[in-house]
């Protein structure tokens, strides 16, 4: 078990803050949380376009794209991200996780769009870590 764990490269996450919203407390908390859990986090900073986020994700060869969205544009941005990500990465799709102010009724729609996980306000550190760690397990 120990040996197996050691062989694995740490999970790499691109944490993006798309759109113009400047409330990045959540993003920064998640960055610190994941780093403390041994996950590598590349935080893009504010106001990144979807194109910039995809380019960074590919360049940094990340395992997950995580987006923090608080301004209510999560559906539009997720649709755009998944569509463009699909056309760039084809079959080898990078899983996308969304967190932020996400109304309950939108979670289903986000999953239909292809978002892998959604963390609305009130999600616990434990739950977040558990999900991210599950991707670490899946990593070859």
């Amino acid at each position, binding site marked *: 078990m120990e040996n197996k764990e050691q062989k694995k490269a740490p999970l790499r996450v691109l944490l993006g803050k798309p759109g113009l919203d400047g409330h990045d407390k959540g993003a920064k908390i998640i960055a610190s949380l994941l780093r403390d859990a041994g996950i590598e986090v590349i935080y893009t900073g504010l106001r990144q376009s979807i194109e910039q986020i995809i380019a960074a994700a590919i360049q940094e060869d990340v395992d997950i794209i995580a987006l923090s969205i608080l301004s209510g*544009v999560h559906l539009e941005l997720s649709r755009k991200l998944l569509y463009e990500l699909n056309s760039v990465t084809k079959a080898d799709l990078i899983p996308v996780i969304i967190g932020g102010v996400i109304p309950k009724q939108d979670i289903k729609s986000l999953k239909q769009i292809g978002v892998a996980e959604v963390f609305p306000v*009130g999600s616990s550190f434990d739950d977040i870590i558990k999900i991210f760690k599950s991707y670490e397990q899946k990593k070859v």
Partner: protein
Amino acid sequence: MKEDLKKIKDLKKKWQEKIVDPRLKRYKLAQSPTTFYTPSDLEDFDFTEKVGFPGQYPFTAGNDPVPGWQAMAESQAIASNRFEWGGASSGGAGKYAGFGTPEDYRDYLLRMHKLGRKGGPNFAMDLPTQCGYDSDDDRAMGEVGRVGVAVDTLKDFEVIYEAYTGDIDIDKIASNFTANGAASIIIAMYAALAEKRGIPLEKLRGTPQNDILKEYVGRGTYIFPARPSLRLFRDLLVFSANRLPKMNITSIGGYHMREAGVSREQDLAFSMAIGTEYLKTGVEAGVDIDLFAPKFTFNAFGGSMEFYKEIAFQRAARRMWANILKNRFGAKNPRSMMIRQIMTAHIGCSSTTLQRPLNNLTRAVVGGMAGGMSGGIPFGAMPPWDEPLGLGHSLEAQQLGHDATRILMYEAKLGEVLDPWAGSFFMETLTNEIEKSALEELKKIDEMGGALAAIEKGYMQHAASQGAYKRQKMIENHEQFVVGVNCFAGPTEIDVRTERSVEAVYDLNLTATAEKRKKEGLAKLKAERDNILVEDSLNKLGAAAKNEQENLMPFLIDCVKTYATLQEMCDAMRKEFGTAEPTTI
């Protein structure tokens, strides 16, 4: 006196040993969860120097010996007209709101007028506007009219202000603009609108938020790097001091920084440091401190549920600001030395919970009580209980919030005593402690070269990220409790809900089509305006931006009048100033 203090000290020691320690043992506690203060905790306390009288330096006990809200309380209750303290019919601006296109926002304001809320507009602007982009820019996609109204050109102001004519024309109301990076452009639009209506600038009242430095720490709607942003602040300050005597210059907000994660003491120190930077900017531009400092207001400091500490915070803040103005800047006018703000202590929006959200009303009432005991109105309406449920407070939540204020005023009579904690061994000690920590932090920032330098170094931004993570960890680790979130959240607890009618303010059908409608309107305007005039004014703005000594306000007003767009003006300045780089961690 000294003898008495010694006696008390001895007695306290005995009490600790004989009474307290056995209890702690019984509860198996290493440290007492309680504190008891005596006169010996407050040795060498000079009441006149540290507290003084309400309305007098150092304003610890409050700005006003007879606050208007208390003076008018009885007549207001008898008349029972709709009266929202701190806004609307009290002569100020109405509730912070805004959405969709200028037409949507205008219609909303007209609806509010019909409900008796005739205060001036208190603009929430959408993110593209706040960040210096037009509705037709790619970066604005999905955000047009979303968290506020979309403003691209003077035309938009003309449409919005169709709601304000006659007995509520813009020389009779106050307008508030939550604009920071774009504040100078927004004020240029307001000035141009007044000119078009034949209203002298001298009559305009209102407040731009115009607190750009805190945007780099929390909230994040900056456009240019911090240094040139401070130049724009200077230009607006000088223009305002000379031409807009009734307009405030800035509304400084520690609130956003605390919400972003900085501690209570950092909130205080950073706010003082940022305020000092603005004051310095005005003085260095050659404006008399007593001419412009009275036009500084404070939006709010951050709040929390910690009742005692938030009261002490407000007392310490007033004393510190007064001290800075008097001793560091040599202000003579007492009005220069006051922290003018709409409310004092309150809870933070981040104190509210999505879980069992009606509890947020209880929380806001606690904040309102702290407000009433710290030199302000007992404002129980901040924020309405449904704050975490999404954009747009319901009318019911607003009603309950305003009723909370009224109950605290009329039934609990919180306004009867000024600074009720004055002289308390406990509260004076706590006030001193908070002031001392904040002064230490302020000294650190001074040594870095002031707020601008501290922001350029990323110091304040770092403090916010660290603090936010720390606070969240404390909740996760049960070092701090939030009812219904990390305790008392079991299956036997009952969720309580109530009706919410979110007024058509945030009509989803309107917001869904806002972007399309706004873009069409903008395209039409761009085709119809005199583009040679536009270009000429933008070139002049760009040239003026190159010369640091030049005041950009007249140039911005000239641009605005040609119907140049907000982004066109920002782009002209971006060429000189650059774009703010996002801080990463």
